[in-house]
């Protein structure tokens, strides 16, 4: 999929389920985020209309929460944990290594939309420290060798597509 092309049909399907729901903005945005991988800026006005809000209110909520992004994300989203336990166990070096390996900085997506590198305040997986998540999979007790091999696996998957 070319992430810059807007799929209006998909959007209206999602919107239809949320029409006029009380306190429905966050669940609606979560569904759009899940379905599109981001919240397309051109969808904001329709979302506002669906819930009888001002577009500025919608925009305000999108920018407030780290879980929403107005830019498209890659196929694999890496969330490197920056929590305390990971931090004291060398999480910084793990992040640095991943940055080098993917040639991405925090918050960036690769030009081919394969990888997005994010950090999380804490994944709540402190017993795995240092830890990261790739999509919904947890990886723990990371060290340089492990990181290289995990990233290699996801690259391989990409190659097979």
């Amino acid at each position, binding site marked *: 999929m070319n992430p810059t092309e807007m799929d209006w049909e998909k959007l209206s399907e999602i919107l239809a389920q949320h029409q006029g729901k009380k306190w429905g903005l966050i669940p609606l945005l979560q569904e759009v985020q899940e379905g599109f991988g981001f919240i397309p800026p051109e969808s904001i006005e329709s979302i506002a209309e669906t*819930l009888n809000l001002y577009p500025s209110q919608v925009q305000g909520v999108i920018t407030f*929460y780290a879980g929403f992004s107005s830019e498209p994300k890659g196929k694999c989203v890496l969330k490197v944990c920056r929590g305390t336990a990971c*931090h*004291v166990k060398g999480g910084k070096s793990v992040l640095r290594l991943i940055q080098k390996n993917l040639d991405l900085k925090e918050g960036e997506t690769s030009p081919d939309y394969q990888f997005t590198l994010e950090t999380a305040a804490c994944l709540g997986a402190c017993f795995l420290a240092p830890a990261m998540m790739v999509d919904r999979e947890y990886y723990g007790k990371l060290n340089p060798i492990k990181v290289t091999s995990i990233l290699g696996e996801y690259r391989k998957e990409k190659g097979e597509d």
Partner: protein
Amino acid sequence: MEKLSSIGQFEWLRNRILSKTTEDKSVVHVCMTGCRAYGAASVKDALVEEVEKQGLSETVEIRSTGCHGFCAKAPVIGFEPMGIQYQEVTPEDAPEITAKTLKENQLIERLAYKDPKTKVPIYHLDQIPFYAKQEKRVLKRCGRIDPTSVEDYIAAGGYQAIVKALTKMSPDEVIDEVLSAGIRGRGGAGFPTGLKWKFARQAAGQPKYIICNADEGDPGAFMDRAMLEGDPHAVLEGMLIGAYALGAAYGYIYVREEYPIAIDHLNIAIEQLQELGLLGENILGMGFDFDLSLKMGAGAFVCGEETALMASIEGKRGMPTARPPFPAQEGLDRKPSNINNVETFANIPLIINKGAAWYGMVGTEKSKGTKIFSLAGKVNNTGLVEVPIGATIKDVVFEIGGGIPQGREFKAVQMGGPSGGCVPKQFLNLPIDYDTIQKIGAIMGSGGMVVMDENNCMVEIARFFLSFTQSESCGKCAPCRLGTTQLLKILTQITNGEGRMEDIQTIKDLGETITSASLCGLGQTCAKPALSTLKYFTKEYEDHIKEHRCSGAVCDSMVISACQHACPAGIDVPNYVAAIACGNYKQAVDIIRERNPFPAVCGRICIHPCETKCRRGELDEAIAIRTLKRFASDWYFENIGMAKEPFPIIYSEKIAVVGAGPAGLSCAYFLSQMGYKVTVFESQKVGGGMLGIAVPEFRLPREVIEEEIKYIESCGIEICYNTPIDAKRTVNDLLREGFNSVFIAAGAQASKQVGIPGEELALSGLLYGLQFLTDIRLGEKIVLDGKVIVIGGGNVAFDAARTALRMGAQDVHIYYRRGIEEMPAWEKDIEEAVEEGVIINPFWSPGKIIHDKEKVTGIEFIGSKAILEPDGKSYIKVEKDRTLKVDADTIIISIGQAPDSSFISEDSQLERSLWGSLEVDSNTLTTNVDGIFAGGDYITGPTTVISAIASGRRAAIAIDKYLIGAKGPIRIIDEKTQFEETAGLALDEETTEEKPRIQIEIENPVARTKDFREVEKGFTEDQARIEAGRCLRCDLEER
């Protein structure tokens, strides 16, 4: 599942479930939550397949459960009714587990927990120390039931409490029970739950809401996650009871989106309740209406704050509002609302089922019940822990947590995340409860405990938390928005090496302002991490600012590589290790000598702080840096030998050094390298100070120290032996004789006395450690036979004990007034001494020496122990009623050394310090007299060779600065060597093959005690090159 419309129907369902659970079926519990990251799913599949294959499907159930707690050993599986646990299980183990354990009741040693010291396997859960010391109440079912099965929960006694409340208790009675149980909010604030409920019940307005705060955002905390993943129904039952008590018609459970498994399990549980009719209208026919839905967070830490959380449920930006009005009056939708934390709700069914009296049987007076902690960071047994409130930090970190990995030193435990603080070592014995922890500047918090060891930097930790709170601050109120930004800026400057001393006061002032002026909990507590580290680790802040030193070797701006930074002398370790890996041994020694003229000595007896900090140690084991150094320097002396020509003399100024120990000779060496003429005066007939006269032959052979000194002499340094500087020829005389500057490095060679009866008599058989070692080293014939008692726990005591063995003593006992782990001696020496047969007796203080007319016959000891005081110091407490009399033919007292200042004439203008040495500036080592400097052990008291060498180099730099007339402090920073070696980056090899540290060979203990041969052998060339190739070359990492 049918809808239950009466209590009777519920009982009927319960009985039906219980009748189906046959007692004789074995159950295997596989943790499928936390352990999933370690492949628990494939372990489970393999077990299911094997059990079927081996025909056990009828008698064995493989159950997916939540967390078992012992996350460090994931994946773990449990066996019921056997009550045993296997750890680090792989799918390949499934056939054997099925054939042996499930079929034959045989235990598999390989999969059992092993005692870390004795390696003895422990199979039974309740005997594994990690579990034995816990009190599992709230977590009782977690790890034993299938969290996606409501039947499992009901079979384990679930939903009995709501039935009891609905049938036997009025809402007020429920609140009274919760009130008298004394439970306080487990989210961290510790507000009494019963009281909170009472307010919400009394509030006017309908409908009322009950909310569960499952937005567990504190970095380092994962209790709620485990609870929700492993036993979600317990939390929901707590909410049902709460809703009944305060009359709430609707509930929300607000879960953070980062917990997908928790969300899945909760959604399943809610659906099950709706199907059963435990949610909805007229629940169980008792006229109680309640419904509940899950709200998923969207990634904002501030939403853990109750008013912000409610804004977020309403679909708004999650910003807090000012209180009052409190949520109990005006909360969600401006209606009365009550918010409790996950763990608080999970406690409620217990209170209703078992009663307040039972509940209060554990805990402290003001804080009842248990608390779940998530234990993470630098601790062996990371995991989920439930203990009675009031357990000590030591219980949790050391007894249950198993202490710090790799034998490193505990530094602090961080409690309460960004709203909490660091609890240092001196508070290890404090009970964990809301009020006590609050008093020392941290909080019990929601239960995250992150352990930090000596390799963590406390300034950097404070900066880390501030960067967290700064980015999570919602920006609504100025004190928090601007304050966190400023605090972060200052802390970043300090870690960047750009700090100023006045910053310390600014942090305190700013911290107080933010605390008192912020709108919500996030701002009110965000300064705590900075204030508490500043309170207990002021020196770390000062060292960063003044000396560019980071004791954890973490801060990038001052650290090239951790090993180099850890070295007091700052040797460029990675480059010389790489040179060894490339076979370039001469270059390796040249690199070492840039900072340390004693490579062969340090290759043998250095305490190697570099290895403690080695990053490879995080991966498997540290590089054997010390032994590599020994290899290279031994090669150097064999193949190259002395310097070809002395350092050229460039300057006309002359310098005198008093004392030819490591500090004095290092100072001389580096001054000489700079181009000065240096003369060293030594009162003994040999050089090397302690190295030459006290360190025994079996640790440091004579010829090694001789060669090192000869090399230093070959660089152009003149050493005058048997030339004491004393009252006849004073330090001032040296200045008069034409020396432009003097460095005093006279060492600490006077043995301390204990001061017990009998010591004052000139008894035969009473010796002092250092003198004893010196006499033997200098060739005096001392014959020992019979029983030798050594008093002390330092290196000299151990050297004396081991030397005594080699001199013919029949048996040697060491007595020490504290515990073995408190002995200042190097752990390796303690181990070797024990191997050789030295017996250590801790917790005994010497009382009096027993003797006849001229000879020692024994000694009396009094029991003693060390008490850790809140000021961080430990004191000796004598236990008068515990005494011990032992016979002895020889007593060697080694309780420490002091400087011998007898050489300084009475009328000298040199200012003395309290402990009898000289008062010097710690940065420049200047005394109060112009041109006279002092350093080494003489100033600091007995330390280590490498510290003495560092002190000597510091003096050399300071003297040079003095002679060229420059002013101000000196700054010794880490620098790259001029001989860089770019090869040997173990990281670049894309191999996952394990490369363990090469073990150092040691002489057999029986053989080695027969003579004074060197105990430790060095590496062979092959070994050295392989070991050096393990280096990760952290110095080449891009910063």
